């Protein structure tokens, strides 16, 4: 080629030819040369795979002469044994069915036995009648890319392993923040449910039921603001603070006041840590249980009566815990008679998104649901709620804790069989 930079070509476009065509004729004037020396391998085979034409680039890569391949070898002869199996079981059938196939990774065998990782694209050339005439194949050297892919795979395997370890840690940690099973309270049926919104993060909801004395039990349920390791640490602290405070003075208002003070003291310098919680003390009454309950900013509990009604209990209490100093909480008294059930829950339940408009499930819907199942035992209430929550699917985007208590409706129905319904994910 001559005159590429010479002055005799004149300004582009001067002779009336389109500039692109002129450049093409100057710079790339031989399609044959392009075919032979393109920066990729070209290979044409008969439909049965017999090599009909091959370019110089591929011959150089593989170290063969043209006469060694054309008319004598098949495409599959150039593949490693593993590649040949893959070619026969995947590549060739797909090519036959689709007429083309792209981006397939194979290894070619060079004349000296070395391997060349390549990416292969093939297309079938057909006659006017649709009969396959040729298979045209372009081959791209993928040595670097393959190394990169292997590295990606290794990193991915490592990431998978890390995630498994994380999830195991989360599950284990979550378990330590919830009672493994509820204690046996004579004359009371109890059940609980916990739904963890994420397998990768410890949830911030918590509950507990524990003996304070021979005929007195403490219970609480709450929700720490936030998630993850920091929230888990706070949850752990809340649990032991509530348990310890109740032993010292079991008045629910006092217990919540103690927790409020502890959260204020311990997290004042770290931007504060907040939670909502309801704390109660159960003592047996003539025909059931007396429950003294205080709430710190927690959603109102539901009382499902033996007569089939269900109402929120607007318990006395105070604001969120851990927000302001020196809050005075108040306790409310609730009587649980035969056939009554009592439900504490976190706002993951009422805040779940439902239906088409993705509205919140809401307190009204929950009350209606409760009225629909009342009268009900604790276990049956948890079963019904489990079904309800599973039905919410991905609308349930927060953790949910539910603790249910019920007094058996007849003396023959002894109750007192604690059960824990696992949310399934934890």
């Amino acid at each position, binding site marked *: 080629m001559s005159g590429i930079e010479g002055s005799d070509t004149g300004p582009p476009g001067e002779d009336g030819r389109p500039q692109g065509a002129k450049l093409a004729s100057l710079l790339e004037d031989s399609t044959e040369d392009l075919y032979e020396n393109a920066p990729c391998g070209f290979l044409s085979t008969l439909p049965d795979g017999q090599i009909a034409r091959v370019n110089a680039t591929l011959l150089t890569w593989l170290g063969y002469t043209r006469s060694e391949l054309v008319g004598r070898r098949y495409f599959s002869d150039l593949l490693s044994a593993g590649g040949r*199996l893959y070619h026969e079981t995947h590549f060739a059938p797909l090519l036959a069915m689709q007429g083309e196939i792209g981006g397939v990774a194979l290894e070619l065998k060079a004349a000296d036995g070395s391997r060349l990782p390549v990416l292969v694209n093939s297309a079938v050339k057909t006659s006017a009648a649709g009969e396959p005439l040729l298979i045209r194949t372009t081959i791209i050297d993928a040595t670097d890319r393959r190394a990169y892919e292997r590295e990606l795979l290794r990193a991915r395997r490592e990431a998978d392993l890390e995630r498994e370890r994380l999830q195991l840690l989360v599950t284990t940690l979550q378990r330590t923040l919830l009672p493994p099973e509820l204690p046996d309270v004579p004359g009371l049926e109890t059940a609980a449910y916990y739904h963890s919104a994420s397998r990768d993060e410890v949830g911030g909801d918590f509950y507990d039921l524990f003996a304070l004395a021979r005929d007195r039990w403490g219970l609480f349920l709450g929700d720490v603001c936030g998630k993850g390791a920091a929230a888990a640490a706070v949850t752990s602290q809340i649990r032991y603070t509530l348990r310890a405070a109740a032993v010292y003075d079991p008045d629910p208002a006092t217990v919540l006041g103690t927790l409020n003070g502890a959260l204020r003291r311990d997290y004042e310098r770290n931007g504060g840590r907040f939670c909502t919680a309801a704390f109660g003390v159960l003592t047996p009454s003539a025909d059931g249980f007396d429950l003294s309950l205080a709430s710190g900013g927690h959603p109102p509990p539901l009382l499902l009566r033996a007569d089939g009604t269900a109402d929120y209990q607007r318990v006395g209490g105070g604001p969120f815990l851990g927000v302001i100093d020196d809050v005075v909480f108040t306790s409310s008294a609730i009587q649980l008679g035969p056939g009554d059930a009592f439900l504490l829950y976190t706002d993951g339940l009422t805040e779940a998104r439902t239906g088409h408009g993705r509205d919140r499930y809401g307190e009204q819907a929950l009350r209606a649901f409760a009225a629909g199942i009342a009268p009900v035992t604790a276990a049956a209430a948890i079963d019904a709620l489990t079904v309800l929550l599973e039905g919410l699917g991905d609308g349930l985007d927060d953790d949910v804790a539910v603790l249910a208590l019920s007094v058996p409706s007849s003396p023959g129905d002894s109750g007192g069989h604690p059960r824990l319904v696992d949310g399934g994910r934890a």
Partner: protein
Amino acid sequence: MTGPEGRPVVMLAHGFGCDQNMWRLIAPALAEDFRVVLFDHVGAGRSDPSAWLPERYATLDGYADDVLRICRELDLRQVVFVGHSVSAMIGVLAAIREPDRFSKLILVGPSPRYIDDAGYRGGFSKADIDELLESLDSNYLGWSAAMAPVIMGNPERPELAEELTNSFCRTDPAMARVFARTTFLSDNRADLAKVTVPTLILQCSRDAIAPAEVGAFVQDQIPGSALVTLAATGHCPQLSAPDATLAAIASFAVGPP
């Protein structure tokens, strides 16, 4: 199931690497004269992923059991079983267990053992098979076709997988790996002599997976079997030579037992 009721049943079983799409060039024509049963092996095509159990499908018996289950479920009798590639041996195992269920066996590109052994040439060395298994294991062989959706790791965006994989023969790579191992490490040479069902072996003239001498070995071992060599290259005559394959299957299926 397609084709007229009451006609002889022809059951088409695909091999490793694809699904029932393998039969798409001959199934419609077969269905004009036969009751054609098409299915995807568990782990392939549109089979139910939840039915996949690695232990069950670690041997060809698991697949043979599935074939017999399909026959029982659909109450199929006098079945002409057409097994391609590894499904040829799956058919052999099924026909040994319940010979009365089958009227004929047609083995397309069969191989009772892929790895060479003393006095036997399967066409591959142990190292060759290891190379395939290792390639599948390390997931870079067929990266784009099979691995893309997994690598992309975007199950919530299936359209990505749609664009990146080929539209036929999609297989979960983990399942494909187990199937490959089961297929290429199997040795069913001793089972061949137990076949009592009339058998036709369809061999390609040039098959990179099942060489001519393997076809001859199968014919020699299965009592009274016939061998037809098709003028076809490759391992999939139903795609590369559909007319000849169709004719061979149809004439053996209607011929005398």
